[in-house]
């Protein structure tokens, strides 16, 4: 009887600590949201909808219209998504279907995990020192102002950063497609390509969509690397090669210098929206992936 009892107590402690740490996380999240909300409140009350529908952001005259940043965020993230998609999809297909095992696949996987683990400030530096000169050369070549930095450069860096993330999710959802389905297709005389296009990708469709959504969430929230290469201009971008700012980059860029209360509050309001949007995107993405895991498992 003794050992049994001890086990139950141990189990109880284990469960209690799980509940406790789970509760702690929820509490921190709630508190975070609350803090953001209270600090953003002055700006929310003062500016209302104009905060996101006007595009003059001038701390000196205390004018805060964040439309340019919303557009900057959408532009960089969507561009990054489009640029990264062919690459992340190819890698996902390669690792999830063609090379599930073997040295090549292990090396590839390790490299992708490494890429995903590089601190974003390093991506930023790489962007500044390598990518920006390239873009500048390109801009001179096509005859547009050679900023180097700007929305497009930021999108490229972002694309590079989300490829490993999207590819890791894509590889998992593609590898999850049940072997029985593929065998069924092969037994009907399909080639590998036909099985991939007609069975594997459609079956993995919702998981791939979720992966794309999660990458989008990443791109929206990415701060450091974007701040370093986007040019930090508060004006509405006139082209994808123009300098700009995203919601995240303007916070990073201005927060330490913001002195007047409404400026700080406006920046926090941006942070609040960023928080809510990325939270929603993450919840939806994770939910879709979990659902496909259940239906395939």
């Amino acid at each position, binding site marked *: 009887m003794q050992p049994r009892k001890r086990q139950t107590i141990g189990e109880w402690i284990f469960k209690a600590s799980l509940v406790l740490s789970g509760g702690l996380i929820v509490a921190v999240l709630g508190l975070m949201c609350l803090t953001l909300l209270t600090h953003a409140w002055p700006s929310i009350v003062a500016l209302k909808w104009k905060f996101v529908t006007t595009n003059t952001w001038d701390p000196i005259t205390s004018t805060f219209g964040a439309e340019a940043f919303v557009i900057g965020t959408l532009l960089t993230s969507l561009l990054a998504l489009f640029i990264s998609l062919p690459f992340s999809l190819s890698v996902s297909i390669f690792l999830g279907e063609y090379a599930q095992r073997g040295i090549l696949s292990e090396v590839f996987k390790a490299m992708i995990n490494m890429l995903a683990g590089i601190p974003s400030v390093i991506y930023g530096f790489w962007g500044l020192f390598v990518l920006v000169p390239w873009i500048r050369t390109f801009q001179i070549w096509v005859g547009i102002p050679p900023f180097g930095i700007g929305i497009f450069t930021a999108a490229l860096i972002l694309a590079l950063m989300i490829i490993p993330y999207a590819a890791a999710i894509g590889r998992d959802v593609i590898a999850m497609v049940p072997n029985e389905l593929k065998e069924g297709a092969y*037994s*009907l*005389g399909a080639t590998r390509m036909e099985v991939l296009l007609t069975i594997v990708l459609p079956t993995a469709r919702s998981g791939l969509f979720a992966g794309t959504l999660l990458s989008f969430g990443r791109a929206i929230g990415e701060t450091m690397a974007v701040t370093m290469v986007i040019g930090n201009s508060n004006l509405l971008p006139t082209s994808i090669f123009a300098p700009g700012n995203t919601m995240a980059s303007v916070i990073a860029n201005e927060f330490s210098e913001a002195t007047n209360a409404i400026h700080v509050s406006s920046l926090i309001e941006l942070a609040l929206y960023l928080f809510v949007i990325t939270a929603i995107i993450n919840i939806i993405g994770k939910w879709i992936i979990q659902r496909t895991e259940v239906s395939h498992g």
Partner: protein
Amino acid sequence: MNPDILTIEHLNFWIADQHIVKDLSLSFPENTITAIMGPSGCGKTTMLRCINRMHELIENTRVEGKIKLSGENIFKLNAMALRRRIGMVFQRPNPFPTMSIYNNVLAGYILNGISLSRKEKDQIVQEALTQAALWDEVKEGLHRKGTFLSGGQQQRLCIARALAMKPKILLLDEPTSALDPKATAHIESLLMELKDTVTVIMVTHNIAQASRISNQTAFMYLGELIEHGTTERMFTVPKDKRTEEYLSGKFG
């Protein structure tokens, strides 16, 4: 019996260094049902998969010997073309979850990029589902997902999917082992009807099932074909002691 449509001659099969099928020779008369029996792990599935060259999906394998389909050596044919001529049904029903019932039946054509007119499609679907004894149950909802069906219905859908390609041979690997007795009976009776047009080769663990529906029975043990013959003879006067013990349920 009818002339042979398929002949296996001295088939040997290895996965890595493991000798799985050992010098197996067996022929299958046209339009009959053959039951392949034997204890778990004796190589039934492996042998069956050699017939439509599904074994090539596994890495590191080696095959020796000949399998002749209407006189042609299948290893000289194009594997995809061969698989279109030989249908396969698996142990667990595996309808394609992204496709409707209608498209599941047509999956072979869709996968191979064969375009058909609406009329041809309708006809193939109705014919295959009727052959698989599923038409009456699904004709009202052909465009629903195939995965909504019961297990037995899903398995008949998979049979219809194989039959839609109009194969001369149908391979089934324990097709009823995941089904209840009623669904099993349903599939057995449809296989008996299919016999008029298709040669059926079925792996089964169900001794009663083999005796009920098969014309020929083959008994495998540790990769070897121990004995084969008409089902009647195999069940009444088996030559080998192991066959007798297995078929009387003493081991397996």
